């Protein structure tokens, strides 16, 4: 995830504002004969204009001198990493598409083990911790708050859950 230059950000915002205006224009106009003189696209297109203007201002102004603390902060952080945040995104996406068939407990355990090991934990401790945490979260949401968490693969043993 690249550190964005303010000029690039400005250009992106101009484009985004244009897209918002375009989408807003595509909405139906005000209903003729009604009391409403402004269509559903009126307010969003104002927002599109505001986004574009701010984008232009940002692109013209360019980067500002870093405020105190900012520069050292960026240095301390170093170059961003890609793999670990992508794993977080992948876990969430997988949860969206697979949780219904696989079930909450197995999904949560796999995600936890993976991320804990990325954090430097050994497999056995990660496994034990993920088991304990998953069951605790399951009990809290499923038994106390009555959220129907998917059972998925564990359906045959539903009586035990």
């Amino acid at each position, binding site marked *: 995830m690249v550190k964005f230059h303010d000029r690039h950000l400005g250009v992106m915002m101009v484009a985004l504002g244009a897209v918002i205006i375009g989408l807003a224009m595509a909405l139906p106009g005000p209903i003729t004969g009604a009391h409403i003189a402004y269509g559903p696209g009126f307010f969003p297109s104002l927002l599109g204009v505001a986004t574009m203007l701010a984008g232009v201002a940002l692109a013209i102004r360019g980067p500002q001198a870093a405020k105190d603390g900012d520069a050292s902060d960026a240095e301390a952080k170093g170059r961003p990493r890609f793999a670990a945040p992508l794993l977080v995104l992948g876990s969430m996406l997988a949860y969206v598409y697979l949780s219904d068939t696989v079930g909450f407990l197995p999904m949560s355990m796999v995600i936890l083990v993976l991320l804990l090991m990325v*954090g430097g934990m050994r497999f056995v401790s990660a496994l034990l911790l993920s088991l304990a945490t998953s069951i605790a979260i399951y009990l809290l949401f499923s038994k106390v708050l009555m959220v129907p968490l998917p059972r998925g693969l564990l359906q045959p043993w539903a009586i035990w859950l």
Partner: protein
Amino acid sequence: MMAHILSAAAELFSPYVMAVILGSAVFGLFIGAIPGLTATMATALLVPITFYMDPVPAVAAMVTASAMAMFAGDIPSALLRMPGTPASAAYTDDAFALTKKGMAHVSLGICLLTSAIGGIFGALVLSLFAPPLASLALKFSSFEYFWLCLLGLTTSAFIMQGSPIKGIISLSLGLFVSTIGIDPVSGVPRFTFGAPSLIGGVSLVPVMIGVFAVAEILRFYAHRNPKLALEQVELKGVFSGQGRILWRERKAIAQGNVLGTLIGIVPGAGADIAAWISYSVAKKFSRKPEEYGRGSEEGLAAAGAANNAAVSGAYIPALVFGIPGDAITAIVIGVLFMKGVNPGPTIFLNNPSTVYGIFMAFLVANLLMIPLGWVAIRCGRVILKARLAILMPVILVFCMVGSFAVDNTVTAVGVALAFGVIGYFMEETGIPIAPFVLGIVLGPLVEQNFLTSMMKSGGSFIAFFDRPIAAGLALVTIIIWLSPLLALFRRRPLLQDNPD
């Protein structure tokens, strides 16, 4: 009125609600004490749990957790030189300098007691001024509401640290997100791209979980985190000698209380700004300004009181007008709406015992802060040993289940994911998050009041300035809009010196 107060007290002091308050207090202290986990995040993570509660315990839980987290943010300031929440950043250097002098217990004692004093002061102002303000607000028309919303959005976009241009970008995008779904005026679905799950609009809870929790998780994994050195210090005697110190710094504390509450009341400005402003005001009028940054007890007392006073003060516009003062109250407003309790002047007519329950929850939470905060300080070193590498995966699973719990669909998990990425991207590019969130919450209110006003006035903008209160609000808003232009003229020579 007495009957409402009594029924609110009966509900608040029931064993169930007390247990909820105690649980959220411990949760808030823990989250706030860990750098990287903020008071706002603590509130956002509580939403899925409070979703199943009545309004009073739900708000009491969030009030308690946010107040506790706000104080607990001072613990790592003193022990790690790292603010636990952004609102502690103003006086981190002072807290740590005192620790270096072997006075960690003194600095944390000041933080704890001034936090409680500030919180209670803000809560008293809230209880005294909210009801009369609400009866005034009943006379407000769409013009006043439009300007009030705009004032809140404007302050959040302009006063935030960083550039107002990025604040405007953040605000416009947040308002745009709020227009997704059926347009209540024309009944036309907007920007849903044919997705049926978007017709009702983007659901607020997964959005909050996304921008405040998932984004932080992504940030944690994207950056190498510096190893922090924990100061090995004695933390006994937190309260010893505090009476004398508090009396000596009474002016600073009073200043922090008043300024903090006032800044909390301004819609759009919250605890972070309150701490910074109160700290610099205290420094400006101090007899010993050279001590600031090197362990000033005065600065600590002023800003420590200010951030907690602002947490309480922010509930005034939230409850009276339905306009959140900061990100935390934006979440609380969202939760109240979901429970069918509409914040705004009518809440005082329709749900008076809920309102009194919230007032009392503030007092209880801030009183409870003193003993529980003492325990947290004594356990500070243990809490700070908790490793983010272990906590973050657990928080992620919690985020997914929490978003799912709102309407039992995985779509909400997808929304949390999407807004997590947006929040991460915004933070990386220096776009502030708060205006975005306020825009999402206030968007429908701004648009409807704007359109209603335009229809009433027949398309003339002059009517927006006709009524005295509306004109006053408009004036303040426009002055804030023009302020960066004025600042630009002043700074021009400086910029020319620096060709970059």
